[in-house]
């Protein structure tokens, strides 16, 4: 399932990289500890986090994540958004909590609902 479809189905606000809506999401990872995300997430994951600073863009680039979802309506920091635009990394915002959005994405990826 691609980023654009997930954004539409779950009412996510896309903040950067609109031409990357076709990025295929093959899994997901939820976490705010950067070493944990670095070690345990995979290429193609959508990363769900509460961190908003620009290092999330570095990690998403390095791990080749499909995109980043910020939870609880958190906006990315200005420099994080600028970096995401520059490096073409999709950042999306949800008003849901990490628990809620993770569950919904899990269902979408595993049963399409």
């Amino acid at each position: 399932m691609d980023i654009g479809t997930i954004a539409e189905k779950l009412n996510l606000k896309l903040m950067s990289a609109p031409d990357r809506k076709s990025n295929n999401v093959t899994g997901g990872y939820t976490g705010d500890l950067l070493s944990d995300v670095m070690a345990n997430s995979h290429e193609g994951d959508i990363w769900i986090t509460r961190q908003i600073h620009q290092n999330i863009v570095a990690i998403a680039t390095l791990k080749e994540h499909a995109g980043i979802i910020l939870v609880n309506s958190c906006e990315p920091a200005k420099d994080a958004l600028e970096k995401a635009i520059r490096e073409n990394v999709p950042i999306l915002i949800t008003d849901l909590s990490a628990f809620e959005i993770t569950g919904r994405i899990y269902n979408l990826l595993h049963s399409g609902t």
Partner: protein
Amino acid sequence: MNPAVNESENKLQTYTFEVEGGNFNAAGTVSTRIKSILKQMQMPDDVVRRSAIVCYEAEINIVSYAKRGTIHLTVSPDKVIIEADDEGQGIPDINLAMQQGYSTANQQIREMGFGAGMGLFNIKSYSDKFDILSEVEKGTFLRIIIERHIS
């Protein structure tokens, strides 16, 4: 053994990157460069993945705890060597620092999601060989080897 293989085994490619202490804005750029170099060299996915993880942790440690440092990459057909050498505060008790969850990171570093006490532990877990030398108020030197496992 085929002599052509021997010859290619002796080929080493080396790269050196500077890392600025305290500059969290640039943190991760060296790791991203190293990953793309290894990909271009068509190293196997697991070697690229493990190298990226250990390099990122080494880079973040320099940014978090040192004034400056260098990361030196050596690639041969059968392994990747990553050496991180910094001028910084050093580590008083390496055994303690190696324990998962132990960290001396300040509050600011922790709030960013770093300093969870996983850095050196992850480097050890994802490498095939890991050496660390440190001197308090001088700096720390890491040598990490990631082997290409021939299947």
